[in-house]
């Protein structure tokens, strides 16, 4: 069966529901339907037969859930099920075909009985065609990362197995998808492991989104880019409710549209559906206007729905033929129709009488959640790039994803529409890092990404795991570069930035750059890359070095827009390199470039002056209708001069507060002193002045978390010991006696440092990040980083921790304080990185949420606290395989491992991880925590420590690592 041939007819009829029919045949609730391909083949063949007789031209083999995860609970392999399913469908097609052939031979020129096979609407004798068999692939049944635990690569492999097993099908249909990422995995698996045509339908809710938030535009942009042969919607809603979704699809899709609705929704008791065959067919007819070419039914439909659909389509064709006859001369007029798009002639013609939704033909890229159409200037955030940023390079080296993600969120909040992602730096495995960063980014930001690398292997890895349609930065006019990069852009359906340089460098004048742009466009189009998917970067040269170049670039920009009809990209801030007051040059150049035709400025969106320029331009150029965007932006951002006043005010307030604290930190001191007057049960009752020592009772043989009297006494003494130490440190030696217990030898002298220290404590208690940052900056002028950490930040954290333990504050407040401390550490880290030093760590700790567990908030809370205490946390993430923990502990020489599990079902993984650590003789202590853990259980699975909360994990770290 030639599917591409079949697509040339006006309509193609699919089948209806399989599950509904199986229930009617008596399938028990809870049966795995795919097993019936082998257990009840006669049922399956009969259902296919009924559909084909009703008019289906393509039947879906009963392979919807035939993946290895679902088949694991049956007695059959994926291959057995898939092969049997295709055989069953083929058998039904053969039975009907042979029956029809016989009857056609008897009846002579058959017109009635075979009409369903060929609804081409021509008056020629109809060819009898055999129904085609589709390999049907539905969702795997487990959610992919980031919400679920299945990786993209695993999903690909699961689909690959099905595709290979289904090689005898005529086409592959991927249906009922709600996750664009999983859909991409399935499409890649289909296209890379077979030559069959691929159809895809996704399932949308009334709001035009799938359950995972994927929009119709994102589906179309991504799937058309990947080269599917038809796409559309199935399941979810009844046909009436699908109309707006199909209309939206028609604006974005380059390929024929599929519609396969439910017969409404099922009754909770009888499980029967509420839309009948006639209503179903009528509702479907309203979707023909939008270029719907391939129709069928999903849940709740049966052969009578397909028969009703067929007669509706037959009628539509004959009506069409009549009006065609009347206006036959106009029919050949539609020369604009691109045959490769192969949209139904019917749809094209039927728009003569009504408005057809206009196709979006601008450059557009997307994530599942957000589609960015470059119909007006859009900002590409440039901050995720290590070039010239030591702190960023350090984050890459330490695989500190939170730092990179924080930068991403900040840019999006500042107004970036797209984020550029570049992770190339010396000593970094760029390919691995790029994949890691892209996956992490798409789990938290919704803007589309621009993948920025010069290495084809990095680009390909990134294009593979990107969820949506990205922009590739970049290709240039060099032949070798185009040959390597453009095929990747074509294969993965991305958009691409073309730099106007080639083997001979950057042409001095606009003519030369335009010539290169044209060369890039020609090469791209030869590979099937559409013109609208190419943007040109005419390259900004530093004006202080080449003064004439600025105007030449702008001239080229204008010609790219006017002569080539393409979008322009520019890295704006290069212009001012080497000049003072760069921001003035930058904003002026940005204004000039936007005016010349710049569509995609690559810039730092955190610079408000630049943002105001873009926002203002959009008003003046008429993009921002009624200035609504500008007004909205204004309400959230004060003009620059007001901001400066605000900053000054804040500074003044901060100064006033510091002064007040200097004279009035008695509160903190009082807190410390309060311990002195208390009754003490510990054997070594501390005096007001002496630093207490930990009691010498030996409890090392007692179980972790033991609550016997001895242990309680020791623990209490430990607590008070810690509290006193803390209080004395924070107050800067309130009792005028240098403390030596912290092991730092000396406390920075009282006075300024002490006051600033108290100020930081206050900032932490109140959750004031800005104050924390400012005060740390001030402290850095006076003392070393290590002094601040050991004598100010950690003692302050201890005070907060005490309050938490005593129930005076609660988890959110503890973490608010920790967030402030993180800001303080960030100031210190940045300074260390800029001065070329490396941060001193108190020791390395591995943290992981165990295999199978996807609740990692608890582990992340612990991480924040441990980092605050100056430990280097190697965060292995969630759902971590035991072997990875072992590997990391050995390779990175780590002596404390923290494991988290939230659910009873994953405690087994925790036990296994501990076992593997022990079996491999890893020299480390293991602490465990999580909602369902108990000290007893922790002991049972041979953990060394049970941490009841984040604060306790810090205490354990202190004990183990110092």
């Amino acid at each position, binding site marked *: 069966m030639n599917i591409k041939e079949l697509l040339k007819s006006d309509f193609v009829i699919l089948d209806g529901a399989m599950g509904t029919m199986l229930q009617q045949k008596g399938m028990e609730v809870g049966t795995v339907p795919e097993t019936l391909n082998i257990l009840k083949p006669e049922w399956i063949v009969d259902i296919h037969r009924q559909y084909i007789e009703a008019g289906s031209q393509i039947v879906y083999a009963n392979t919807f859930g035939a993946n290895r995860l679902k088949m694991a609970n049956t007695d059959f392999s994926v291959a057995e099920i898939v092969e049997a399913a295709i055989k069953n469908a083929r058998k039904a097609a053969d039975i009907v075909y042979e029956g029809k052939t016989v009857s056609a031979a008897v009846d002579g020129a058959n017109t009635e009985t075979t009409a369903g096979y060929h609804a081409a609407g021509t008056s020629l004798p109809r060819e009898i065609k055999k129904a085609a068999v589709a390999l049907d692939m539905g969702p795997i049944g487990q959610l992919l990362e980031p919400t679920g635990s299945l990786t993209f690569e695993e999903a690909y492999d699961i689909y690959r197995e099905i595709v290979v097993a289904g090689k005898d099908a005529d086409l592959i249909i991927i249906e009922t998808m709600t996750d664009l990422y999983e859909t991409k995995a399935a499409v890649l698996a289909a296209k890379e492991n077979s030559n069959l045509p691929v159809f895809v339908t996704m399932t949308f809710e009334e709001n035009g989104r799938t359950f995972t938030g994927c929009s119709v535009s994102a589906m179309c942009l991504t799937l058309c880019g990947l080269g599917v042969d038809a796409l559309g919607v199935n*399941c979810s809603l009844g046909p009436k409710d699908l109309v707006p979704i199909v209309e939206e699809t028609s604006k974005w899709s380059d390929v024929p549209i599929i519609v396969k609705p439910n017969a409404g929704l099922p009754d909770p008791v009888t499980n029967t559906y509420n839309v009948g065959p006639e209503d179903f067919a009528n509702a479907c007819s309203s979707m023909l206007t939008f270029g719907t070419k391939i129709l069928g039914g999903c*849940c709740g439909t049966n052969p009578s729905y397909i028969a009703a659909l067929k007669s509706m389509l037959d009628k539509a064709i004959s009506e069409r033929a009549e009006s065609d006859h009347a206006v036959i001369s106009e029919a050949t007029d539609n020369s604009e129709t691109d045959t490769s798009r192969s949209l139904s002639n019917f749809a094209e013609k039927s728009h003569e009488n009504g408005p057809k939704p206009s196709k979006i033909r601008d450059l557009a890229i997307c994530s599942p959640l957000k589609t960015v159409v470059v119909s007006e200037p859009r900002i590409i955030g440039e901050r995720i790039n290590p070039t010239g940023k030591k702190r960023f390079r350090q984050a890459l080296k330490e695989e500190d994803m939170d730092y990179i993600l924080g930068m991403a*969120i900040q840019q999006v909040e500042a107004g970036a529409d797209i984020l550029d992602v570049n992770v190339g730096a010396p000593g970094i495995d760029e390919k691995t890092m790029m994949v890691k960063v892209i996956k992490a980014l798409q789990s938290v930001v919704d803007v589309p990404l621009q993948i920025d690398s010069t290495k084809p292997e990095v680009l390909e890895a990134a294009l593979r795991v990107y969820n949506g349609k990205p922009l590739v930065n970049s290709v240039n006019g060099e032949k070798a570069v185009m040959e390597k990069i453009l095929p990747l852009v074509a294969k993965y359906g991305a958009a691409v930035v073309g730099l106007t340089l080639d083997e001979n460098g950057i042409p001095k004048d606009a003519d030369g750059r335009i010539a290169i742009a044209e060369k890039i466009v020609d090469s791209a189009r030869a590979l099937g890359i559409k013109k609208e998917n190419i943007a040109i970067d005419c390259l900004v040269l530093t004006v202080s070095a080449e003064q004439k170049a600025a105007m030449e670039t702008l001239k080229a920009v204008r010609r790219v827009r006017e002569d080539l009809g393409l979008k322009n990209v520019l890295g704006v801030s290069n212009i001012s390199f080497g000049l003072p007051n760069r921001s003035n040059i930058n904003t002026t150049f940005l204004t000039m470039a936007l005016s010349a035709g710049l569509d995609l400025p690559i810039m730092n969106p955190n610079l408000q002056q630049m943002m105001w320029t873009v926002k203002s331009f959009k008003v003046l150029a008429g993009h921002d209708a009624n200035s609504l965007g500008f007004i909205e932006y204004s309400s959230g951002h004060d003009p620059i001069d007001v901001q400066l006043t605000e900053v000054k005010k804040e500074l003044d307030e901060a100064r006033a507060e510091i002064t007040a604290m200097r004279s009035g930190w008695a509160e903190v001191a009082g807190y410390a002193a309060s311990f002195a007057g208390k009754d003490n049960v510990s054997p070594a009752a501390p005096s007001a002045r002496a630093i207490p020592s930990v009691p010498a009772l030996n409890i090392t043989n007692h179980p972790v978390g033991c609550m016997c009297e001895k242990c309680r006494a020791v623990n209490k003494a430990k607590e008070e010991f810690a509290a006193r130490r803390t209080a004395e440190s924070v107050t800067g030696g309130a009792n005028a006696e240098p403390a030596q217990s912290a092991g730092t030898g000396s406390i920075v002298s009282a006075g300024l440092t002490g006051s600033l220290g108290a100020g930081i404590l206050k900032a932490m208690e109140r959750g004031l990040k800005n104050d924390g940052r400012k005060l740390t900056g001030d402290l850095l002028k006076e003392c070393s980083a290590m002094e601040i950490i050991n004598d100010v930040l950690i003692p302050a954290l201890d005070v907060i921790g005490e309050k938490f333990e005593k129930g005076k504050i*609660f988890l959110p407040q503890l973490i608010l304080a920790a967030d402030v401390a993180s800001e303080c550490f960030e100031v210190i880290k940045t300074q260390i990185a800029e001065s070329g030093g490396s941060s001193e760590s108190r020791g390395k700790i591995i943290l992981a949420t165990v295999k199978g*567990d996807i609740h990692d908030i608890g582990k992340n809370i612990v991480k924040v606290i441990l980092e605050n205490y100056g430990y280097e946390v190697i965060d292995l993430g969630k759902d971590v395989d035991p072997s990875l923990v072992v590997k990391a502990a050995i390779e990175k020489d780590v002596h404390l491992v923290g494991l988290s599990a939230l659910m*009873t079902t994953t405690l087994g993984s925790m036990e296994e991880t501990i076992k593997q650590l022990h079996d491999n003789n890893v020299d480390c202590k293991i602490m465990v925590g999580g909602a369902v853990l*108990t000290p007893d259980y922790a002991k049972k699975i041979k953990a060394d420590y049970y941490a009841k909360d984040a604060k306790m994990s810090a205490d354990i770290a202190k004990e183990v690592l110092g």
Partner: protein
Amino acid sequence: MRTMNVGKIKLTQLNRTDALRYMGYGTREPDSQTSALLDKCERELLRAIDGKYVYRVFSLTDGQIPDSKFRLDGYSVKKHLQGCTKVIFLCATLSDAVDRLIRIKQISAMAEAIVVDALASAAVEQVCDLAENEILQGFPNLEHTWRFGLGYGDFPLIGQSKFLDILDAPKRIGVCVNESLLLTPTKSVTCVFGLGHDLSKETMKSCDMCTLGGRCTFRLNGGTCQSY
């Protein structure tokens, strides 16, 4: 009687009492800092929540559903459904956007992540409460038991995947299960409740059955979830 087995629930405010309890505040009044956090997080969370549920009603014969491969196994659920003539399978979720919000907050503001997480746990119970009310309107003449969660007592969690398949939950409301039997989106619930006449008080919740044991936050505060 509802004619469709799926429903949407719109929440307009969230149960802060529960959220505070989850965060360890017990019954204490939150301080102003925490209240401000709750205000902000509730606003953002309400925007992200897309409350949905799917349910089916089955007849019970001898405590089991006839012609079904799903077994209501375990002493606790059998006892719970004693005397019931029907059982309702319910799955409810706050949807994927909530997981996303919690992920974002963990990067941008961990304290808010904790508050959003606690509020969301409270919210999914609210969705269940409202769903239960809507469903029960179809059975005005029957008494009902409380919602009995899969995995509660000795009702095996292993049935989770089949349970979702029976409800068609992946297709209807986007709820799936991973290999550790955890639901995704994470703020989702699966449960059953029984319908019948003259149901015994035995179907009240009991601490003996509960797996939380000594870690229950109600009991730490001297109460139970029944007295609450």
